[in-house]
């Protein structure tokens, strides 16, 4: 009788084992921030992000990190100013965390909650739409985080006494593959 019980329990536990842990790795990425000023529209781009996703029990935790220094706007003076304004030497990394249900992998668009840690502050963005395109074993994820300078308590840098706009949207374009 005990054997039957164990067998039944094992059969019922099988789905739990089937949803075993899996991992994802960030292949390529382009992260772009956009700053607006009456005299300039500036974009800073970084391809230096690294990321990892860990899936367990139907949920995938993703972490993407990028050095603040790696953003290039094409103007070294502006990049140094950005580094100073965002306290990039004190807080050298930008981290983005999110949790995506594993079942959503095949969806074209998903809404996720995102936590961004930057300049010593953490900001939460709810229901951010991300586009997913799966080709082979690679999944391309793109979307825009509607970040603002105020979210991270960054004083807006100014040029000719005119400060930049508060909105600094961050565009994410990433390609992931499973390990």
């Amino acid at each position: 009788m005990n054997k039957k019980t164990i067998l039944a329990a094992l059969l019922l536990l099988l789905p739990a084992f089937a949803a075993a842990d899996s991992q994802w790795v960030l292949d390529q990425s382009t992260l772009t921030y956009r700053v607006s000023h009456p005299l300039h529209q500036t974009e800073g781009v970084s391809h230096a992000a690294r990321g990892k996703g860990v899936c367990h029990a139907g949920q995938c935790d993703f972490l993407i990190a990028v050095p603040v220094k790696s953003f290039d706007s094409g103007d070294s003076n502006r990049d140094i100013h950005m580094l100073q304004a965002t306290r990039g030497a004190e807080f050298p990394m930008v981290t983005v965390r999110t949790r995506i249900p594993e079942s959503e992998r095949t969806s074209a668009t998903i809404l996720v909650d995102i936590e961004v840690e930057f300049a010593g502050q953490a900001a939460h963005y709810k229901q951010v739409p991300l586009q997913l395109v799966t080709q082979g074993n690679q999944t391309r994820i793109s979307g825009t985080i509607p970040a603002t300078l105020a979210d991270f308590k960054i004083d807006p840098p100014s040029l000719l006494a005119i400060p930049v706009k508060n909105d600094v949207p961050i565009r994410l374009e990433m390609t992931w593959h499973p390990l």
Partner: protein
Amino acid sequence: MKAIRLKIIAVFLCLTVGSAVSLAQAGNSQQAGAPQDQTTTTPSPDKGSQDKTSPEQLPNAPSSNAPPPSLKDLGFPPEATQSNAKEQALLDKRIHMLKIHQRMGLITTVPMLAAIFSSAGATGKGKDTTGRDLHLALGAVAGDLYFITAYYAIRAPKPPGIETRGPIRFHKAMAWIHGPGMILTPILGALAYDQKNNGEKVHGIASAHVPVAIVTAGAFGAALLSVSIKFYED
């Protein structure tokens, strides 16, 4: 037999209910169209590491035994992730000095433009030297402010390993023109001033005062505009 059946049912219920709760939590994150809610937290007191968010703080966080990925898992070199207070202080000093440089540069344009416009009144041949004196005074003020402006750019500390790129290269190149120009212009102006006051026609090297001043002012203006207005698209 009854007890065994009960055990099996209990195990089945536990697993079914557990899975259902987990799926329900996953489903809660999919409320499309909900308003954006952004919050900020206090700055991290732990300067050495930014990787401090617990799984409970994460959005949509259900209970999970698997540890979420950490910054260490990503393989960044330690120096890339460590806080550097010394470098931050250097950056703060640099930006503070460059802000003064920018402000002083803008202020310098006022007496510089005034000196250019007053030059028309400095060429008179009569004994009245008011026009010349005014031009000299404005030029002197512009020169003093110019060198204060230059001081803050030259003395601003630069972080190591930064390659100069973008419009700032043009801005710096122009300094090789307007810098010597701002030394030469007052010297030539002083010679021309003396010649005029002696009733002579400006001659010799002093006659270069006007063209040197024009080139100097032009280079100064171009340097100012190069970092203010975008001339080209990347």
